[in-house]
């Protein structure tokens, strides 16, 4: 299959990530449905609220495993650099937007966007980092 990564670690990364993302959709649906229909109270509320976050935390751990297992030094270096750019971009946007919210009455943006921006910046930065080595 051409769409799968060439290295063993890369393939393992995909095989781990796909079910984790499926689990995320399932947990998100479960949490939303429970809040709407069961109206939980007490500790269950916190547990249900955190439930969809667990697969996302897992996805970060999967990236960490990929970094540890990837034998191709170049690919690993590209990923690590793009992760740092991803975090830098996400935290920069978070800082800018936080100031705008505090001072310029900008609309509130969920904290979740920091995570989302991390992946977006990470994806955008990868081709640019690769270009540097051509």
């Amino acid at each position, binding site marked *: 299959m051409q769409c799968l990564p060439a290295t063993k670690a890369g393939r393992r990364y995909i095989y781990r990530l796909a079910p984790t993302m499926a689990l995320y959709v399932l947990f998100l649906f479960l949490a939303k449905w429970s809040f709407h229909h069961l109206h939980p109270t007490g500790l269950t509320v916190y547990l249900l609220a*955190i439930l969809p*976050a667990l697969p996302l*935390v897992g996805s970060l751990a999967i990236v960490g495993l990929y970094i540890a297992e990837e034998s191709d030094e170049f690919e690993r270096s590209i990923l690590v650099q793009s992760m740092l750019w991803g975090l830098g971009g996400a935290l*920069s946007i978070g*800082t*800018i937007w936080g*100031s705008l919210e*505090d001072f310029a009455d900008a609309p509130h943006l969920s904290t*979740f966007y920091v*995570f989302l921006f991390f992946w977006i910046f990470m994806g955008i930065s990868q081709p640019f980092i690769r270009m540097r080595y051509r």
Partner: protein
Amino acid sequence: MFNKDLSKFQRRSVQLFSSSIILTAFLTVMVRTWFKDYHPTGPFAWLLAFVPALPFVGTIVIVFRYLSQEKDEFIRAQVLLALLQGAFITLVITVVYSYLQNFLDIKGPPAMFYVDIFLIVSMFALRFHLRSSQ
């Protein structure tokens, strides 16, 4: 690793890194004061809100410059590991907090909070790795 063990390049990088963090904090306080006293509006308010994020972007650039020029492979690996651990913890806190915020209507922390978490966790991780390797 103590200050006396640092190479000229490492010492210079630490100085630049610390300066950019201090500048970020200083500009944040200045912008806050400006907004409180002069209540700027429109595009100027948005531009002003950008200012504290600029030294933070500079911090990321300094980190990359350090990582690309550091000759000691061991120290470079330790710094990289600490930064990735800082990124991991920051993103975990972001994701978990965002779901608590969405489902339980908890007020979000200021955006700069995540930058602080990243820097503090990375700093402690680096200290820990360097001490345990001695």
